[in-house]
């Protein structure tokens, strides 16, 4: 019998969870929502310094497919987010969450794509840099794209007000 036979996905998610807990990158916490289901995670992301998101702590969910890591998870913020690459329902739209050949937003071919060599940690780090540097080439929230391009002060102000909301202020 295969010693390792059984769900690759579960084994991998457990390894990733342990690694993330032992060596958590700054500004990121993530783990399964309950012990019963390793395929639903919750993450908390701190707004990067020197960005309008600074000071905020943003909760998000990660939903993993049964064939993870062959296919990527879906990531969704569960708080209000105003950002060019986040849909209004909170779904994050960045290249690392898409396998090559899947081009909903026509990412440039050189951008980082999903494959099993990626990980939850790499996704969350990409999301951190996405918060710091929106990509207005592949917009998910058109309104946020427009404001980000045309009036950065206004953009920062809207973001700061959502940040205050997530903190319950």
């Amino acid at each position, binding site marked *: 019998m295969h010693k390792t036979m059984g769900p690759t996905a579960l084994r991998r998610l457990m390894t990733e969870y342990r690694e993330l*807990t032992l060596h958590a990158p700054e500004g990121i916490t993530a*783990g399964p929502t309950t012990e019963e289901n390793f395929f639903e995670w919750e993450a908390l992301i701190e707004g990067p310094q020197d960005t309008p998101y600074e000071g905020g702590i943003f909760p998000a969910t990660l939903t993993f497919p049964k064939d993870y890591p062959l296919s990527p998870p879906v990531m969704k913020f569960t708080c209000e987010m105003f950002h060019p690459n986040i849909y209004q329902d909170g779904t994050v739209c960045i290249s690392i969450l898409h396998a090559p050949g899947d081009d909903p937003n026509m990412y440039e071919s050189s951008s980082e794509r999903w494959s099993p060599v990626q990980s939850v940690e790499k996704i969350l780090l990409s999301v951190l840099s996405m918060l710091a540097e929106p990509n207005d080439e592949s917009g998910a929230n058109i309104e946020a794209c427009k404001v980000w391009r045309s009036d950065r002060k206004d953009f920062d102000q809207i973001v700061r007000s959502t940040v205050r909301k997530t903190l319950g202020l």
Partner: protein
Amino acid sequence: MNFTPPPIPTDAPILAATTTATTTSSHAHADPTVAAAVAQPVGAVPTIVAAETMGTATTGAQGQEPQLTDEQILTQMQAIKDEEANLHPLVDRSVDLLELAQEYENGSETFKTKIQNLSDTHDRMRRSRGDGNCFYRAFAFAWFERVMLAIKSKPELHATAVRTIEETKDLLLAAQFELLAFEDFYQVTLETLQNLVHYTSDELLTAFQNDEISNSIVMHFRLVASAFLKTHQDEYAPFLEFGQTMDEFCSMHVEAMGRESEEMMLIALTKATHISIEVAYLSGNQSAVEVNFLPFLPDTAVYMPPLVLLYRPGHYDILYRKSHCLEGVI
């Protein structure tokens, strides 16, 4: 925030949880369309695709899309994959080569003639599912089957194969892959190879039809091909187009499931595993009636007859050479 993460699992509970988990087998394979739909944002196109394909479209008035949770979408995608899996196993039973000719009964004369000519030296073929992974899967199955069939007569083939797979770990580390990213695939591949000692042909086929095992093996060989290309950039980067770097090429075309392979991946895998391949090119080219064979050779000495793959535009299957054509070599 009510976020209370469960305790950190240590090695022991992980193993326990892995062996006792009752997750149903997922018929996971990387059908590009399915992968695309899964990865897309919720509420947009994939919702409709999923619903329609499942025959459970609940789309109401125009512009109204059914509201599905991420969980429901993933479940539906899984059902689509399962349906596809029932139609074509990942690796099929071998069939008489002339069965292939029947596919072209009302079609191209050129194909029929070529298959007829091919049947002088080859008697059987085995299909690999056309999911973009067919080359890697066909390669792995053909190699492992060869080793299994020779387990008594040529046990050294098995020892060499085990050593070769063990060495791929060093190659992957040399190419800067993280252990976390490849160890599960590596383990499954090595264990399947070790199991060949007591496997029957049916058991080998069952293993390759199990998507957990089969896709892990495919993924391992994808990473091996990628690692070989990355560690031999000087030789292969000049063949890349549009100023692409080798890292970009590998992440776009080699490391992700379902991405089709081209000549460079065949060369890489041949050289990384020291296994020679011959590819029979069955094309509709009418200027020749013979099938062209293209050899892919390792840099090291060839120690067993080449694995033979059948290529039809866009797809690889396994071919079996008639035994009298192999006499004296194995």
